[in-house]
């Protein structure tokens, strides 16, 4: 089927109006030499029933979190998502609208962005936030580029506790620029602070750390702030998982200049890695406001003095500044940020705290139990939030396979990142004591 509703009669009427015999005549402006002289080799033409059968057949081959209990994290988290979210964002007025270029007919989207910016700013403790970036990786990267512009320096200290994929994306974004990336190793499970200190100098544009970091540990942001403060230009970028900020002290309290990262955990399904949303929040002085990438909504007044919202500070953006824009970003992740807005509103003051709190407690319950087993050791037992690093005397792949046979996705083999060995386990509020106990029991059988 297709989505054309003109009938043949109507098409003929239109052709006559245009003054051509056949539609092919309009295409005559495409030179023969480059015209396609055959049909495309693309199968399809399916009815809805055929399409659904076709897709279901393929989908059957997946092992989904619907049937498997997941302890997977590493930047994509299986939190509880209230039913109302999908109902609300399935309203066509949200999901079929374009970027709010005509503000007067887009107040819904614009106000939702304003609310999103407000809650992200509150959660991170920062002054302002943008409307979203493409994902956590690109948000970290854009934060680094922004820091280089603000500081006019070019040395970037990347903690090895920053998600390996974010580090890679950041380096890709930075590669065309004259940036000097230095990776700071780990001591135990957190950034090696002696190494960090030894690398700090007047050329540093930014220190980038993750909070909690890739292995789930909480970095000593207080000491990092002290070190950074000795260098006037250096900025502190904290890549934070927003859900943990329900109970963790916001990065602003440790002198963060930019807080950025992945917003998926705020109400978005795991969806095999996307669409998610990058968030970016920062200090509110003009210096930062001029350099922040991406769209921003602001409140203003209409001709009658009533409150309304528009996209603002647009002289930073590509459609105005072209080659001089702060970033090339145009399309962002608006619907995902609307999801996160509704999530933050629904969970609210108590809910966000409870989600973080339960995730923390359940992860610790699991770690306590695992540490009692002979063959396993939690590397960062003394310092983790809701995700932890496990070393095993048994082959990790065997363990993962054993768990999978029992319908459990029991963590991520760290060898896939090529840096450390072991297993990364994540626990959210969705996991029950019974599920955790079963995991421990199966691990005990190894």
């Amino acid at each position, binding site marked *: 089927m297709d989505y054309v509703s003109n009938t043949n009669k109507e098409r003929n009427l239109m052709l006559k109006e245009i003054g051509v015999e056949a539609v092919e005549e309009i295409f005559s402006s495409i030179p023969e030499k480059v015209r396609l002289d055959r049909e495309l080799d693309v199968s399809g033409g399916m009815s*809805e029933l055929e399409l659904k059968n076709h897709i279901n057949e393929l989908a059957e081959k997946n092992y989904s979190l619907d049937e498997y209990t997941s302890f997977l994290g590493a930047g994509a988290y299986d939190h509880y998502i209230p039913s109302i979210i999908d109902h609300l964002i399935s309203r066509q007025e949200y999901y079929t609208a374009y970027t709010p270029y005509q503000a007067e007919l887009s107040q819904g989207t614009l106000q939702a962005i304003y609310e999103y910016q407000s809650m992200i700013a*509150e959660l991170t403790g920062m002054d302002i936030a943008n409307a979203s970036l493409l994902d956590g990786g690109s948000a970290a990267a854009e934060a680094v580029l922004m820091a280089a512009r603000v500081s006019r320096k070019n040395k970037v200290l990347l903690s090895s506790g920053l998600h390996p994929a974010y580090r890679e994306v950041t380096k890709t*974004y930075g590669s065309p620029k004259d940036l000097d990336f230095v990776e700071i190793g780990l001591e135990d499970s957190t950034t090696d602070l002696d190494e960090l200190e030894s690398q700090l100098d007047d050329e540093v544009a930014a220190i980038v750390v993750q909070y909690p970091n890739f292995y789930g540990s909480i970095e000593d942001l207080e000491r990092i702030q002290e070190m950074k403060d000795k260098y006037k230009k250096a900025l502190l970028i904290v890549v934070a998982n927003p859900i943990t900020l329900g109970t963790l002290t916001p990065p602003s309290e440790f002198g963060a200049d930019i807080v950025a990262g992945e917003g998926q955990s705020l109400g978005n399904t795991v969806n095999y890695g996307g669409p998610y949303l990058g968030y970016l929040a920062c200090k509110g002085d003009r210096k930062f*406001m001029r350099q922040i990438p991406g769209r921003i909504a602001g409140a203003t007044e209409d001709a009658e003095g009533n409150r309304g919202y528009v996209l603002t500070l647009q002289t930073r953006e590509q459609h105005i500044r072209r080659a001089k824009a702060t970033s090339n970003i145009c*399309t962002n*992740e608006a619907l995902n940020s609307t999801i996160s807005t509704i999530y933050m509103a629904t969970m609210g003051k108590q809910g966000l705290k409870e989600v973080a709190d339960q995730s923390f407690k359940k992860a610790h319950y699991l770690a306590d139990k695992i540490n009692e087993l002979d063959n396993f050791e939690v590397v960062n037992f003394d310092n983790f939030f809701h995700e932890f690093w496990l070393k095993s005397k048994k082959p990790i792949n065997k363990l993962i396979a054993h768990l999978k046979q029992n319908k459990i996705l029991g963590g*991520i083999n760290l060898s896939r990142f090529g840096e450390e060995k072991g297993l990364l386990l994540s626990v959210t509020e969705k996991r029950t004591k019974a599920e955790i106990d079963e995991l421990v029991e199966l691990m005990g059988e190894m």
Partner: protein
Amino acid sequence: MAERLIKDYSSPGRKGYSLPPLDVPDLELEEYVGNKYSRDELNFPEVSEVDVVRHYTALSELNYGVDSGIYPLGSCTMKYNPKRNEDIARLNKLSQIHPYQKEEDVQGSLEILYKLKDDLAEISGMDEMTLQPASGAHGEFTGLLIIKKYFEDKGIEKSKVIVPDSAHGTNPASAVMAGFDVVEIDSNEHGMIDIEKLKEAVDDDVAALMLTNPNTLGIFEKDISEIADIIHEAGGLLYYDGANLNAVMGYARPGDMDFDVLHLNLHKTFSTPHGGGGPGSGTVGVKEFLKPYLPRPVLSKKEDCYTWDYDSPKSIGKLHAFYGNYGVLIRAYSYIKTLGSEGLKKTTENAVLNANYMKNKLKEEFVLPFEENNLHEFVLSGVKQKEKGASTLNIAKRLLDYGQYAPTIYFPLVVKEAMMIEPTETENLDTLNKFIETLKTISKEIEENPEVVKNAPHNTSVRKLDEVKAAREPDLRW
């Protein structure tokens, strides 16, 4: 008609969620991490579920979507977003999968992605695609990094990218992000690349020409083969901005026009919804010789098994933490399988027919700056109306009063008082006629009573908003 902020619904102690009670032993965060890392306060709304539903429903009612009516934003391809694609993208078996599950766990999804990649390569005439870029601009950046890496690998230094003045703003912005200097060239009197100026601009320092074809005026660059030769002979590459694929699908392929790299906006031609500004997908296609530089990982098929291949030493690296906007890709696949080759061609044909019909009906009332044949979109100029006191911005706002969305007016910069109109194939004669009549009515209003147009909109939830105030006194959060 204004809707208050969600925080204004707040009442201390009110809750809109419930979680099962904690079933594991309690542990105080503060005791474990110390009070330094334990948060004191989170000043979030305290609202009920009904509050949330009412509030975000009220906000949605202040919006206009494709389901509300015609959305003729040029260069944005605001076509109908099929509902069945939404259902498919939400299937638990497809959406409830984690990006770090093993490949053997997600063969169904990988097969969909692989087939989508093949279909997009066939439709665009390229040899290989990456699905990683999450937007058009992200795709441009990816494509330009590939070009950069290719020349570096060959040991050739090139610093410039040529961009026509009619190009979308992301083109020059992406070129700068990828480390190039931008050389802008003017269009000729037909709205096309000026071959002489192009020749002057081209030297062996040019890495690429970025071209939209048909260009953003809707006009096909008839000298495309000559343009390609000029660039290639000078040792540069040709980049295709595929935002306008809805004009040529099934009729011509960028690959056959000798483009080396392109990006396609799946959130345009392939009907995935814009979501009020995103998510999108800017898949990138390349010719064979550029394959080694594609972002990591590359989706490949070994025997009957689909895998992510990380072993590509010449790759530009990663641009997205995972594999791109998977949920968007699923919708695009669903769309392509619904249409098939016949439906895709019919789509193009009707998009072009609709645009040409509208142009014919409107070219007398407004100024048509370029007489050339156009395909799926066209650009009018409101200079005549401007003389009478109303700008295209005013016309755009007045259209909102009539319950219809406005054309693109912020570009292309080559036309004064531009109105870039793209009806898409999913509009029919009735909705086209209604829009045409409305534009004519507004033009008449400008003659008879320009104030009503200049002060538009009148019927929307807010009147014309003060953008200057918004920028001068930034109020970006509560």
